[in-house]
């Protein structure tokens, strides 16, 4: 009995979807637009993530060691730093590399190069370029390094440049966190609007069938049997709209790719679309199925009270 009813419900869901031509078309169009907005939010999120990630990557702190600091102490500090959870990477630049970099940077400045030659010893100390996972963690890392002393008790850290750049880093951190919160807020608002639009569209589609529902109830059909085909129809609206939106994203992302790349730097939406197609497909189809099915379920409920 249950399977016979389920089979009939699915059959009528498909038949109604096909026969309610204009209502189906209108519902699919509206749902496509709203699912397109939901899909766009995924791309906006990805672009923002990648842009903020790049900005964060540009922030690092440099730790300069005294010229007399023994290399083994520096190496041991490096490995203990790398074990800290806040640290993303530690790049060690030795005294020799420092002087080479310095010379390369000033290769056109003969005066400085001559002055270097006058010196007996390499005046530059080794240094670290440290990247933290979050910009807010730089302060604690810098404080840790300032107070660091080698095993012998002699301080080996000469200078940590965080304190010179503190204002800029703090400002950047707050901008990044504001943009993160703002974009999350905007995404949530658009999601809510999309859900309401889909719900309303399906409600209108089912409003046109209210008489039909009352007749079904009066000939003795149970709620499950009346509601079933509408839920199947809603799910089909969702699947069709999601597939159309996915197809539309192909030319749109190709067109948008150079624009976003120039503006945000690095983030190519078309590559993101191609590389994350499965994920976007699942999100859109599931959103469509869920929103279509649940909206139909709720919209029919009102007319079942006979």
């Amino acid at each position, binding site marked *: 009995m249950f399977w*016979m*009813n389920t089979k009939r419900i699915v059959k009528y869901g498909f038949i109604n979807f096909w026969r309610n031509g204009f209502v189906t078309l209108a519902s699919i169009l509206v749902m496509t637009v709203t699912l397109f907005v939901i899909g766009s939010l995924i791309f906006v999120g990805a672009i923002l993530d990648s842009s903020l990630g790049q900005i964060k990557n540009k922030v690092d702190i440099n730790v300069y060691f005294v010229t007399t600091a023994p290399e083994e102490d520096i190496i041991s500090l490096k490995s203990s730093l790398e074990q800290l959870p806040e640290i993303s990477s530690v790049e060690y630049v030795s005294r020799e590399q420092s002087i080479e970099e310095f010379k390369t940077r000033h290769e056109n400045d003969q005066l400085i190069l001559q002055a270097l030659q006058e010196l007996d010893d390499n005046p530059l100390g080794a240094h670290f370029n440290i990247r933290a996972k979050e910009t807010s963690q730089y302060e604690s890392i810098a404080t840790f390094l300032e107070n660091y002393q080698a095993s012998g008790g002699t301080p080996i850290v000469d200078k940590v440049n965080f304190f010179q750049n503190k204002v800029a880093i703090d400002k950047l951190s707050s901008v990044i966190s504001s943009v993160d919160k703002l974009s999350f807020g905007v995404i949530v608002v658009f999601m809510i609007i999309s859900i309401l639009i889909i719900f309303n569209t399906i409600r209108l589609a089912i409003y046109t069938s209210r008489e039909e529902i009352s007749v079904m109830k*009066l*000939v*003795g*059909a*149970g709620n499950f049997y009346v509601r079933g085909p509408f839920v199947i129809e809603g799910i089909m609206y969702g699947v069709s709209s999601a597939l159309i939106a996915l197809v539309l994203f192909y030319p749109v992302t190709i067109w948008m790719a150079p624009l976003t790349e120039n503006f945000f730097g690095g983030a190519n939406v078309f590559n993101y679309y191609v590389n994350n197609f499965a994920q976007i497909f699942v999100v859109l189809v599931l959103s469509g199925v869920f929103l279509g099915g649940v909206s139909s379920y709720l919209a029919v409920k009102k007319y079942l009270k006979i």
Partner: protein
Amino acid sequence: MKENLKNDKNIIHFDNVKKMYSENAMALDGVTLSIGKNEFVSIVGHSGAGKTTLLKMLLAEEKPTDGKVYFDTTDVHSLNRKDITQFRRKIGTVFQDFRLIPGKTAYENVAFAMEACGRDDREIELDVPHVLDLVDLGNKIWNFPSELSGGEKQRLAIARAIVNQPEVLIADEPTGNLDPINTYEIAQILKKINDIGTTVILTTHNKGVIDSLNNRVITMENGKIIRDNENGKYVI
């Protein structure tokens, strides 16, 4: 005057039923009425007399403000939602505005009523064409309601109402939208359905139909029964 008592011979009994939509809108005012098994009852009265409200009470579409409605021994309004669904399968209904499902063909409209009752596909394939033949729609089986005339639509609605062999058929002004020829045909079909053992309750404004049937006539006015005659005529 027919005696309105609740007993084994009666299938339907309204016991002092009142329905108020608001303080000034009394739709039914203490209706007590019994309808026997296999009886053909016509209910007449002006618009707003309470005929349709009375039928809605029987179908549990509306709850009475006071009083009870019995079908056999069951108090209709004490049933839960699931039992109401089962109960409605015992009653076939025909409306003035046909209330067919526009997206389904004639066959599917009738089949739907059988499917809703959980009948299997083989039964449906056998019974639906047979019932459509009975109402003379054998050649319109795959037409949609929009492709049928008013009389054909009403005959289709009757086919749908009787396909599950209900104990009672309610026809709420079934000829209100039809021309005299179709009205006559519908009246004859209802008579035939009654002859094969189904209780028929008909509400109508059509004097010709009532007079030709020569059956029990109940006259309503302002929510009350003012006349109840065996072999009655249309008198308002």
